[in-house]
């Protein structure tokens, strides 16, 4: 089974599990551009909660937040993260909605809204691949931004994001297209089995700490294997709010940090992490904090792969920092 087919099953399962859930999107009634609502629309019991809307580039998230504030659990399926950037205005209101309506009396309004957005290179369409979409979303106060890094965990990330067990407010789950197209060895994980807002060690090592997420995570792991350096690889996973204390502890453990992510290096989440280590862990660092990221320029659709650093570039950086 493909990852997208698995995700379609998870989406239908989420609707079955909780009657408050509704699916939103312009084309959800037709299965969605990626087929994520295909299983849900086939089920007559779930069909009434698959809510097609007109194209609402500016207001879709405010509409979803209105539904959420009134007790629904909307799952917004976007064709790509570009739609989230078009809708930043509505996303800001969605993120502020609970806070703005908070009083010293009365029950606060909850906004259990989950937005699912494919991002980065993979389909050969260019678009958002060369932009720091995650950074733009992470700068909205009150919004949680999660990013799946491993193909076998994509469904588990979706479940975790939509269940709001840890994240109570509006949550955007970024699904890198490269991860969606990735091969899965073995059955996909049904549950994440950990707190989605905490960093996760995907490989243990003593010499270097490699921090990565999303489309770059598999590159980072491959680069570590290629160098033979005894490195820890961390899946950061939650890009906003950043789990700073846990990440700083990881940085201090080896004192040698390589940050690997897709998208432009300038103004990225990696820059925020590097600044945070300089601030909180400077006395534990034995080498410069190095970032390896994608191209810092617009990319033609044919070159969109340059939005993710190559294994060779990452390996070189790891070797340099390991022997610094």
């Amino acid at each position, binding site marked *: 089974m493909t990852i997208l087919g698995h995700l379609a099953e998870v989406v239908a399962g989420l609707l079955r599990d909780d009657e408050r859930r509704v699916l939103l999107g312009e084309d959800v009634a037709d299965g969605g551009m990626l087929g994520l609502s295909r299983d849900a629309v086939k089920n007559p019991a779930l069909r009434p909660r698959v*809510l097609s*809307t007109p194209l609402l580039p500016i207001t879709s998230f*405010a509409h979803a*937040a209105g539904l959420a504030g009134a007790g629904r659990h909307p799952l917004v399926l976007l064709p790509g993260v570009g739609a989230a950037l078009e809708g930043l*205005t*509505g996303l800001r209101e969605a993120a502020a909605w609970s806070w703005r309506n908070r*009083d010293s009396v009365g029950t606060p309004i909850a906004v259990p809204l989950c937005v699912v957005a494919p991002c980065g290179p993979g389909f050969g369409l260019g678009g958002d691949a060369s932009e720091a979409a995650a950074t733009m979303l992470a700068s909205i106060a009150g919004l949680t931004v999660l990013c799946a890094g491993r193909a076998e965990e994509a469904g588990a990330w979706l479940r975790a994001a939509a269940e709001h067990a840890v994240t109570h407010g509006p949550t955007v789950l970024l699904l890198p297209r490269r991860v969606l197209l990735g091969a899965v060895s073995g059955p996909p994980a049904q549950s994440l089995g950990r707190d989605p807002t905490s960093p996760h060690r995907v490989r243990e090592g003593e010499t270097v700490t490699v921090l990565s997420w999303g489309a770059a995570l598999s590159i980072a792991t491959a680069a570590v294997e290629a160098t033979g350096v005894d490195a820890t690889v961390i899946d950061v996973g939650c890009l906003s709010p950043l789990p700073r204390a846990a990440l700083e502890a990881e940085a201090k453990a080896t004192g040698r940090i390589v940050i690997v992510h897709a998208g432009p290096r300038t103004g990225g989440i990696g820059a925020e992490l590097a600044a945070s280590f300089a601030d909180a862990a400077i006395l534990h660092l034995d080498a410069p904090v190095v970032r390896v990221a994608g191209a810092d320029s617009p990319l033609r659709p044919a070159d969109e792969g340059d939005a993710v650093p190559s294994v060779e570039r990452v390996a070189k950086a790891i070797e340099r920092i390991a022997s610094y």
Partner: protein
Amino acid sequence: MESTPWDPEGAAALLDAEGKLAGGATLGGLDAKAYYKQLVAARSLDLRLSRAGVPMWASAAGEEAPLVATARVADDEEWIFGGGRDVAIALTRGMPLPELVQRVMGREGNAQPGRVSSSARRLAAGTDALGMHLSLAAGHAHAEKLAGAGRATFALCGEGTSTSGAFTETLALMAACDLPLVLVVRSQLWPNGAPAEAGVLGDSVADRVRACGLWTRRVDGAEPVAVHNTIASAAERARSGRGPGVVDVVVTQLVHDPPAHRDPVERLRRFLDGRGEWSSTFQDVCEAELRTQLDHAFEVLDEHDALASQRPGGRP
């Protein structure tokens, strides 16, 4: 009386300029005296708050009819999404004045000063971005439709918002998803010095909305009876599943010094006077009652501020 440049064309009214019911028209069960008291209270509150030094305050004098009428028509469980200059809604909904003043002065809640919201009273907070509260209201109405409880949701905005993308998208959403949403637009007419959008779009929001396929009525905001009854019709349609409605209310801001018949409070006063239901004593009682309560509310605010300033890090 002949119509003046201040009178909108094609806007429904039941009372003429002298406050007389047009031939065959009825109040339709409206308690005109109670409604009048609420309009007077809204006016008095507006005048008092205009002197209170609220940042970016804009008076709503002359625009009371759609505010008071919406609050009267909406049931207690039905949410109202205001759009600024709408403090009268909370007053008409029965929010005690000390609480209202605390909120409007920014001492309670997280809404911006000058606005009144309260989730307990189903009054949604305003948004940062222009017109985005309309889309939040559409989402809320969508949830009400799914719940099937026969409740409407109300949202208000000014005609300026009608050129925004959020307004247009909300219309598309209301129409496509058949939402139980009543949108009340307060449109100003400009007898002299119209802004740019009026020239481009004509003076009727209703005409543009009708082209989107929505149930639309245009009423004269200086005539409070028509305003009330039209909003009530829109609400009944929404509650009974007959779809969304947009009520375009042409208001005249008193700050522009229009002729007296353009003042909705005066128009209803003339009506009551014509029926022998108004006297200067009645007027004095209406105004004095609210003035006393308002004075008390501002005393409570001063006490609150005095206490807060004594706490470490408190308001100076």
